[in-house]
């Protein structure tokens, strides 16, 4: 994608092209970045394993989630909803809606990676926040492919290993609440959410969602309030749209 590429720096004629700026990055630099993200985030599978086990899921169920779902926020959401004794389909719906963003990552990635069609079903499981972030940051197709594969592989292996260790650890620890481990789930959500709160729109959506959530928890069955709170997104967009069109209307009014 052209808009992703930084313009080539203007170089005086005769100077040897600097490989770092000409190609953007060496392969090993890409691998280093990718492994950094893969390891840092992969380790937080431990928090998921602990949370899942202490919410009453078995070792097999916990590991199945990390192997088959492999998108952290959805996994945390699902085990949280199941712990509340919610309906399985309502619980899955919340997790699914959180996973929908990955479709939009896939859209960008298929343009950037230019994968052959037969590879895509295999690459799909790795289409998540972290692989997208690393891939988008790379300047060339080669670097993007290396970044995607190295981040995806290191994160997948480590996330599943630490999930297993976390679940085993939770069983060994027993009372995970005494260790404050029940705070790992909400803290993970906060850590994912905070970087998204860039503009007033995002903050308004987040604030409205919190108000809806806390207001509805006492009155609606488990798992349902989060789905209603998700309506904060279309509500804020709708109000914004109304304001924008009201703004253009009043400007047209003064023109006349």
């Amino acid at each position, binding site marked *: 994608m052209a808009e992703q590429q930084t313009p080539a720096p203007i170089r005086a004629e005769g100077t040897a092209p600097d490989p770092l700026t000409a190609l953007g990055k060496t392969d090993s630099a890409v691998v280093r970045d990718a492994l950094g993200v893969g390891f840092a985030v992969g380790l937080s599978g431990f928090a998921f394993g602990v949370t899942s086990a202490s919410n009453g899921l078995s070792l097999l169920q916990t590991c199945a989630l990390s192997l088959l779902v492999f998108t952290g926020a959805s996994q945390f959401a699902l085990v949280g909803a199941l712990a509340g004794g919610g309906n399985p389909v309502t619980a899955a719906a919340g997790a699914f809606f959180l996973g929908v963003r990955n*479709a939009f990552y896939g859209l960008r990635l298929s343009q950037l990676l230019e994968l052959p069609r037969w590879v895509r079903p295999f690459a799909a499981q790795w289409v998540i926040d972290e692989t997208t972030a690393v891939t988008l940051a790379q300047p060339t197709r080669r670097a993007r492919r290396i970044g995607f594969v190295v981040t995806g592989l290191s994160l997948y292996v480590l996330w599943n290993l630490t999930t297993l260790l976390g679940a085993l650890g939770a069983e060994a620890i027993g009372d995970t609440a005494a260790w404050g481990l029940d705070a790992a789930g909400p803290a993970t959500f906060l850590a994912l959410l905070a970087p998204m709160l860039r503009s007033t729109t995002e903050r308004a959506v987040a604030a409205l969602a919190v108000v*809806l959530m806390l207001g509805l928890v006492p009155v609606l069955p488990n798992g349902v309030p989060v789905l209603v709170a998700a309506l904060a997104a279309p509500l804020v967009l709708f109000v914004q749209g109304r304001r924008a069109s009201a703004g253009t209307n009043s400007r047209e009014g003064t023109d006349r």
Partner: protein
Amino acid sequence: MNIWIAIAVTAVGCYAVKLLGLLVPVGVLEKPLVKRMAALLPVALLAALTAQQTFAEGQNLILDAKAAGLLAAAVAFVLRAPFLLIIGAAVVVTAGVRALGG
């Protein structure tokens, strides 16, 4: 059994949307409103889930040591701590407040 159903539905659904993104032709989902919704939906869900898992237990609203833990996580984020340290701060402070009888 209910848990396995939820796991199966989530796994199939989450894989399907990942694959969908890689397979659809460019331009189909690239409408401004759809993109805005896709960006804002996780914001609403993550905010709601943070609030729920901090302040709700079943259908009751509660205020316990986790609130202090979340505050610590927020401070860690503002101080630009890495992802794991943010979670670590929440866990340590929650455990600390509980140990002190909070």
